[in-house]
């Protein structure tokens, strides 16, 4: 890896200021960043270490971006009020990575696309060259089935779909400035030079995730399909949260991971359910709606099938 300056930040504003230096990158746990550095996929001049930042007093509705996945998975309040988040955090990566890896790092992580992760390979996001997965003979099996433009990356975060289904917002910090966004608005379409798919301004960082417990958040679920139970990324993940009143769907949020360049809010699924009884018929209709907009690539049509079936399973679990 290229040599870099190492800066340890004491606070988010200080980290944010340090990140104004060109060619700098933030590092939380560094579980993935270190691999990207070794592969020379990123070659920053400076790393700003966030891991020593003192965390603010915890408020049940405010999750620090520096909370580890293990902390989220073990939190009783999260298990009770946000079961989808609990399930996503519990299944992520490996015990070692969950002990170090952070919420913010999970949300801002870089796609697992092998072209993106190989210095020298053709990649739209690294340098604007054609997406290797979309070129003739390219490997597209694990890639997106929705919204494929010049890049076929699938977004790898498992916490993002769970949190989107839970209606989470993110608080961003830049210097002394703060702003709050709906989580789905954190993500931006693939663009050259932006590996992480997040619409952060220079020096801006995710500081916290804001959640509100509700009957809907308590009736939430996260399911994922992956090839290996021991350390793997999901090929498809589905998160759903449903509030039922008098047997009908009063409010619903559904999101999917690993199927599009960004974590994808499934508005077509929500529309198919809203106001209807949550029964086998409406669930079948909603699952059908989930794949209407899917446009699989040469070898990943099976992801649309799996998405359909995971949607059925997720919604079946919420029938009560």
């Amino acid at each position, binding site marked *: 890896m290229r*040599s870099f300056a190492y800066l340890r930040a004491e606070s988010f504003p200080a980290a944010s200021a340090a990140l104004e230096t060109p060619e700098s990158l933030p590092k939380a746990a560094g579980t993935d960043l270190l691999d990207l550095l070794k592969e*020379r996929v990123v070659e920053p001049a400076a790393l700003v270490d966030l891991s020593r930042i003192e965390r603010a007093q915890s408020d049940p509705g405010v999750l620090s971006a520096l909370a580890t996945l293990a902390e989220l998975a073990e939190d009783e309040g999260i298990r009770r009020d946000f079961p989808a988040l609990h399930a996503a955090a519990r299944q992520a990566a490996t015990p070692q990575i969950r002990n170090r890896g952070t919420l913010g790092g999970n949300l801002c992580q870089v796609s697992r696309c*092998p*072209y993106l992760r190989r210095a020298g*390979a053709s990649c739209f996001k690294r340098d604007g060259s054609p997406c290797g997965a979309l070129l003739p*003979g390219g*490997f597209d099996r694990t890639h997106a089935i929705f919204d494929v433009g010049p890049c076929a990356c699938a977004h790898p975060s498992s916490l993002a779909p769970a949190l989107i289904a839970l209606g989470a917002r993110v608080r961003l910090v830049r210097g002394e400035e703060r702003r709050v966004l709906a989580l789905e608005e954190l993500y931006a379409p693939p663009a050259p030079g932006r590996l992480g798919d997040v619409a952060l301004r220079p020096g801006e960082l995710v500081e916290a995730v804001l959640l509100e417990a509700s009957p809907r958040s308590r009736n939430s679920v996260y399911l994922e399909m992956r*090839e290996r139970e021991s350390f793997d990324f999901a090929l498809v993940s589905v998160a759903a949260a449903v509030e039922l009143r008098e047997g009908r769907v009063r409010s619903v949020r559904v999101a999917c991971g690993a199927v599009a360049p960004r974590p994808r809010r499934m508005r077509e699924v929500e529309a198919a359910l809203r106001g209807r009884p949550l029964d086998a018929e409406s669930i079948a209709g909603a699952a059908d709606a989930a794949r209407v907009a899917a446009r699989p690539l040469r070898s990943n049509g099976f992801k649309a099938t*799996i998405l359909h079936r995971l949607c059925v399973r997720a919604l079946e679990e919420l029938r009560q």
Partner: protein
Amino acid sequence: MSQRTLELGFSGHSEERRVEVPPDAPPPWDLRSDLKVAGKPHPRLEARLKVTGAARYTADQRLPGMIFAGAVRSPHAHARVRRLDLSRAKKLPGVLYSEAYPQREVRYAGQAVAALAAESEQVLDDALALVEVDYEVLPHVVRTEDALAEDAPAVAGRRNVRQGRGMRRGSLRRVEEAHARADVVLTREYRTQVQTHTCLEPHGSVARWEGDRLTVWASTQATFAFRQTLARALGISAAQVEVITEHMGGGFGSKFGADAWDVFAARAARATGRPCFFMLDRRAEHLVAGNRPDSIQRCTFSVRRDGKLLGAQVTSHGTAGLGRGAGVLNPAIYAFEATYSDQYDVLTHAGSARAFRAPRHPQGVFALEGMLDELAEAIGMDPLELRRKNDPHPVRQAQYDVGAEAIGWSRRKPSGSSPGPLKRGLGVAAARWAHNARPGTAVRCRIGRDGSVLVANGSQDIGTGTRTILAQIVAEELGLPLAAVEVRLGRTRDPYGHGSGGSVTAPSIAPPARRAAYACRQRLLAAVAAALGCEAESLSLREGRVHGAERELSFAAACGLLPTESIEATATGGPEDMSYPSFTREVAGVQFAEVEVDAELGTVRVVKVVAVQDCGLVANPLLARSQINGGVLQGISYALHEERILDARTGDMLNANLLDYKILGAREVPEIVAIPFSVANGRTSTGMSSLGEPPTVPTAGAVANAVANAIGARVRSLPITPEKVLAAIAEAERTRRASDGEKKKKKKKRIF
């Protein structure tokens, strides 16, 4: 020569055999031998060192002043090197040695074009990035199917498709005649993938010169071959080289000699006067250090309605990259009336294959056992029954019973009848191997006047437990507890031993170890006979004591009577203890698998594997089970996960790491019932059979058959991934619907 009657075979199936035992050799162990240490479940001697991290592997070596080496590798599968410039890299402070390989062409991604050695790993990494290479990219082909095309780029010479000697076997005419007599003839295509060895410890070595003598710590499964190939490459005599392999982090057939990087390390160490460390990184490990070839097997098999197997015809194409040896081995297990196989290597621009744990077998058995199940299904016979009817091996016949009982074969339901989305299924497959005891291994045994016992051999313990087995054999022969014997392995200054290939190590090293100990024992008894007042022939050594007719002595006291500081004997495995008539000619194994398939998502979970494996006489049940467990795990990993993925456009490997190249992990481990099946085959004085490779042979076949039983549809391609499972189910449903439609039409016809 003395005459002996041995009882050979296995429990419930034995026979007596008269043999002649040479005067200086111990009589072979058989079913009647009452062994105290050998054959017992002693934990591996270095177990504590390994689990605590105290065992020092080659990759752990850190010598004073050591420098680090690495290579610049081509990212292109086929390219002409127009320019290669090391000048910037060499100017970097701390870069100490370099070599350029100005070959005209690179022919696979990963091929080295230059190598460097530097003060530290960081300097090395920076320097490698400064090497400038200008490639002119040339047409390439990396996929077997693409290389078969008429207009495919030629990889070497004119034709990509080659047939070596011995790759066409049997008689096509006789097979066709057999097919003609059959009730069912099926033609199917089976495919397997390229699997990389993925040794946990990468390839490589650490070289240190002292004057004109070279010491090399090597991660090798063949210390002596390593010494030979390295010495030859350096133009020095093997006697100047000492190879040390204290512990070995996996070889699986890919570490049989010194490689280019080992030669570089030795040259860099000589040029700089400092020890040099060169271990491959994980990417290079996948690209350049060998693999198991893939295969496309076109099979036509036939059977009579009563279950008699008739013809087996296999045409296979596979790629060993730039190398050779992509054939498959299949119909040899069952007694077909006629077999014919026609095998072709397909050259591609990819790293060469190397021997990989039971080369040719797992891929062949996957197709063979799949075909057997398909034939059984076609004639409506239980698949296990079909195997029993056609298997001539007495040991496997017994293993079918043991395994069927352990897995609960009677629970097996007709294929596809499991209800609900989670479907269970059972499958069976078999393996054969040869009794590979090779003469030529030498073992030295020394008993000191202080009562110490040392046994030494220069070959390596690849991880199978050779060190422990040697101690057990010698302790048994000397009537001592295991702890009384010290073993030294893995130093080429000690007597010769073979490379660990073909599962030869334990069967080949045990007989000379026993005979060396036997010789020491005879001399010890002769030395103390007078003190005990009787003839040496009437003395015995057991439980740590020398027993005479009236008096006895502790082993240590007996050693104290030795006239010299120590007694020593070296024995070499040869006809005197390795060529008795044997009970069977082949090592037999049977495996049963139970799987659970999520038929909606396509995921497969292996629930249980029962592996019944012929071990000859079991050297150590713990070690034997460990070998079987390892073979089964590697087999499941091959069946469900592992696959080298090359980008067709660039020829580069896309999953050259340990996340995307999926090896089975802890949570994929099923319940494994490893059953070491003891058979006294009598061939050698110690009776151990080959065990390293056979347990990985049938696993993929058994798992695939269990999947087919679960879902009522067959995946004929490895690895069995979710999309293949879903596609097979969808295809079966289409066929069923079409045939239901046909039936309805017929009904309608009848009505109208």
